[in-house]
């Protein structure tokens, strides 16, 4: 069965449809692999028993017209799943079992997939290393004591480590693309409004998007096709014509114009990142596309802008975790005392830090100087992209300014941690789609990713570019199974 876990989603779907494999075979294989992989700490909650039952049920009456027929899948623990504990990586939701399903996961189950379990993540998706989770840090399958990135660290680890064929994460400032880059997999952050936010534990509402994480671009396209839908339950969901992303996938990108933004050549960026980027430019040219130097002048303001907007929204979004209605409650002398103890004990340090930043920037007297100004800069950043897209079809950048770092390396230096998101954050601020694909290794043999940023609603285009480049790059992830005893 060991070869099952090595198959891509596309292959698994094919084999189930051809009846070469049953859902039970596939589900068993991934459960088996997951059970052997406890050391990765990728799961917060598993649902293996009922996954197997569902697989058996599927096999009794298989509906092979579905897009994910009997495919087992674990998802980030930020998606509310009916009757399955959903924690957002936080103590404050440690006992929370939703009575409802997020739209994105509902779409997945409606296409025949089966829930394996809920994957670890940074607490409320706040982090870049999966070290802020109440349920402990996640190990990277790439190397022991290496972070898988964050906040979708459990998701990245689970896909790279072959605990699940594909998964979904969420991306507020890079939480899909950065861990994808760190673990040598593909991760897509869709256009804001492409995937419903209904039922996803909110971090920063104007930035949050769910997206697919997969071993390859085709799998990513297929999963994106399943999760992207117009949803009237989310007022920011957009009703646009969605493609059959996997069917329409092509490696023909001849004549496409790809922008290379000079502002992404940041101070202190390791040479190997610059080299990777140059290699990427060459791949683009090899595919018959053209690269054009462009300028995104406000790029350097993106990170400070993000660290005002995101905490501001988070400070308000997380106000509902107050010990009154659900979740963790500490005993207190009175209401205020209960609030203070519940939130002090229920939230970790990073979440508290961001709540405090957010509360500060929204305070009267500071609102204009911080929040309002940040909103204006956000508009400028978006304008930069709009301007660039008059000349180019997509933009190529490195995904991260470095490869994965060691667990504990940056925990005491939040700013250095935040700097990790420098290339991904502008994309969220502008509401654009961005995809990270594995493109090489650094000197230590750790994966490095390249990011392709597209026009709004133009996921097909960046998937095509990624697909064409993937073929040229021919990346092989070096997974040694170090954690398997």
């Amino acid at each position, binding site marked *: 069965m060991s070869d099952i876990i090595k198959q891509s989603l596309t292959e698994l779907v094919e084999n189930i449809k051809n009846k070469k494999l049953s859902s039970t075979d596939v589900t068993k294989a991934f459960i088996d692999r997951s059970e052997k992989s406890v050391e990765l700490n990728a799961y917060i909650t598993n649902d293996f028993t009922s996954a197997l039952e569902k697989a058996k049920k599927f096999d009794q009456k298989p509906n092979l017209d579905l897009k994910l027929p009997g495919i087992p899948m674990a998802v980030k623990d930020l998606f509310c799943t009916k009757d399955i504990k959903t924690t957002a990586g936080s103590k404050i939701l440690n006992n929370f079992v939703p009575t409802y399903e997020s739209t994105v996961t509902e779409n997945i189950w409606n296409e025949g997939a089966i829930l394996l379990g809920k994957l670890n993540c940074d607490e409320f998706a706040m982090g870049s290393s999966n070290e802020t989770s109440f349920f402990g840090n996640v190990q990277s399958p790439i190397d022991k004591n290496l972070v898988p990135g964050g906040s979708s660290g459990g998701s990245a680890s689970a896909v790279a480590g072959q605990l699940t064929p594909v998964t979904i994460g969420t991306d507020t400032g890079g939480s899909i693309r950065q861990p994808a880059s760190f673990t040598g997999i593909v991760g897509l952050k869709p256009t804001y409004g492409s995937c419903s936010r209904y039922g996803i*534990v909110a971090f920063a509402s104007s930035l949050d998007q769910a997206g697919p994480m997969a071993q390859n671009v085709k799998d990513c396209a297929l999963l994106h096709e399943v999760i992207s839908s117009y949803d009237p339950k989310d*007022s920011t969901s957009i009703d646009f014509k969605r493609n059959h992303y996997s069917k329409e996938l092509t490696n023909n990108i001849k004549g496409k114009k790809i922008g290379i933004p000079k502002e992404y050549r940041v101070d202190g960026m390791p040479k190997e990142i610059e080299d990777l980027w140059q290699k990427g430019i060459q791949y683009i040219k090899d595919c018959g596309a053209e690269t054009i130097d462009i300028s995104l002048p406000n790029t350097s303001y993106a990170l400070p802008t993000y660290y005002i907007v995101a905490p501001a929204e988070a400070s308000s979004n997380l106000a509902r975790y107050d010990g009154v209605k659900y979740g963790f409650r500490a005993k207190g002398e009175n209401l205020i005392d209960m609030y203070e103890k519940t939130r002090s004990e229920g939230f970790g340090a990073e979440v508290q830090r961001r709540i405090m930043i957010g*509360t500060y920037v*929204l305070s009267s007297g500071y609102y204009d100087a911080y929040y309002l100004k940040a909103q204006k800069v956000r508009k400028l950043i978006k304008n930069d992209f709009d301007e660039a897209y008059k000349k180019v079809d997509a933009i190529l950048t490195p995904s991260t300014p470095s490869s994965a770092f060691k667990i504990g390396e940056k925990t005491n230096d939040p700013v250095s941690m935040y700097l990790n998101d420098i290339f991904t954050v502008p994309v969220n601020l502008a509401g654009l789609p961005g995809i990270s694909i594995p493109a090489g290794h650094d000197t230590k043999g750790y994966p490095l990713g390249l990011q392709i940023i597209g026009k709004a609603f133009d996921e097909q285009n960046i998937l095509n570019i990624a697909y064409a480049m993937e073929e040229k790059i021919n990346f092989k992830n070096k997974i040694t199974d170090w954690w398997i005893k």
Partner: protein
Amino acid sequence: MSKKDSEYLINRKDNQYEVVIGLEVHAQVLSESKLFSTSATKFGAEPNTQVSLVDAAFPGMLPVINEFCVKQAIKTGIGLNAKINKRSVFDRKNYFYADLPQGYQISQFKDPIVGEGKVILDMPNGQKEVGIERLHLEQDAGKSIHDLDPQNTFVDLNRSGVALMEIVSKPDLRSPDEVNAYIKKLRSIMRYLGTCDGNMQEGSLRADVNVSVRPKGSKEFGTRCEIKNVNSIKFMQMAIEYEANRQVDLIEEGKTIDQETRLFDTKKNETRSMRSKEDAHDYRYFPDPDLLPLEVSEKFIEELKNDIPELPDDKKKRFIEEFKLSSYEANILVSDIDTAKYFEEVVAKMGKNKDIKLAVNWITGELFAILNSKGLEISQSPVSAKNFAILINLIKNGTISGKIAKTVFELMIDGDKDPQKIVEEKGLKQQSDPKALEALIDKIINDNREKAIEYKQGKEKLFGFFVGQAMKASGGKANPQLINEILKKKL
């Protein structure tokens, strides 16, 4: 326009103070479902039975605007002669409280759905215009119940998320009487529009009252205090009276007034400090990222405008012109939409040969008295407009006298009986046959010869005696006018 003697002023020694009042009225939108969820809004339901996952702020739940509530707010704006903003923004007002599940209230801060408008008040000394600053939509909070248990507070989220319109007036009101008229006018307009039921007992209409005082003739405003959440007109008036006097006393003592939020204690009839400006909440308003700015088209607004019924001011004008009513009568009839409806139905049912004055007198007299004594609204009137109209016509065409009509009316109340039938069954029809009446009067004059002579000798008071005798003999049914005529002729 206001006459000097009717001004509301507070007098201290040689000083006179004017009171300046502005109201923030919270009117519950008449809607079957909440502002951002599909939960029901019925009053008096079992606690926590009208609560959705959105209302209880479960993780990942998102607000979706209820279009009907938007329409209701725009209609109200039209009724207040106000500017409708085609683009408005929902903001989050952040604060912690046990009955505020989200930790913020979704409201409109900078860009409300309705801008400046005005309402006209009919005061005894003339009309008064009150400016409307704005109207915005917002969610109500839940209810904390502190008195069910000595240790614990219980929370009922049925109200959580119910749509409210906050209607902010300009500081144009100058007396408790004007506040009374203003609230009644707002209530009347909204009830005409069907946008708020105006039921103050059920909390559908409440107000925060801003009060300041200034020396008479001064143009500058004094420091204001806000009296929170007052839920009856009487309490508003009492609170203003108390608060204005408190502020005047402070000024007279040479002290300053602190800008603060106060509560009105209905038992002690006094206001007391709730929190000072320094302790004021920092609500950290910012645009709700879960909701896009609310945009409405010109067409959308126009369609709503076409849907606006005749409002009290126009109705009043029409009643005066069409029915020749006095301004006073018209006011009484139009102030409540159900009264106006009843009146117009009576007018319609009376047919061609109608006596509108008589109908008005009977509505404001007999009908109101009965409703009052039974504690009923006119919409619950035991006498239908149709039967009421028949009764008025019976008086008008001389079938029964006004006096008999009162008897008939009392009989009608029980089961909304047809007055025509009552008159027939009880034989209450007026005797208007001159021959029969002449015979009857001849007999009375015969039986009272001496009194008839006295009358002829000049004791004119005795005329009344003969009328009385004639009415008595006819069992009250004789046509009084005919009796008069015949008696005059015969005596």
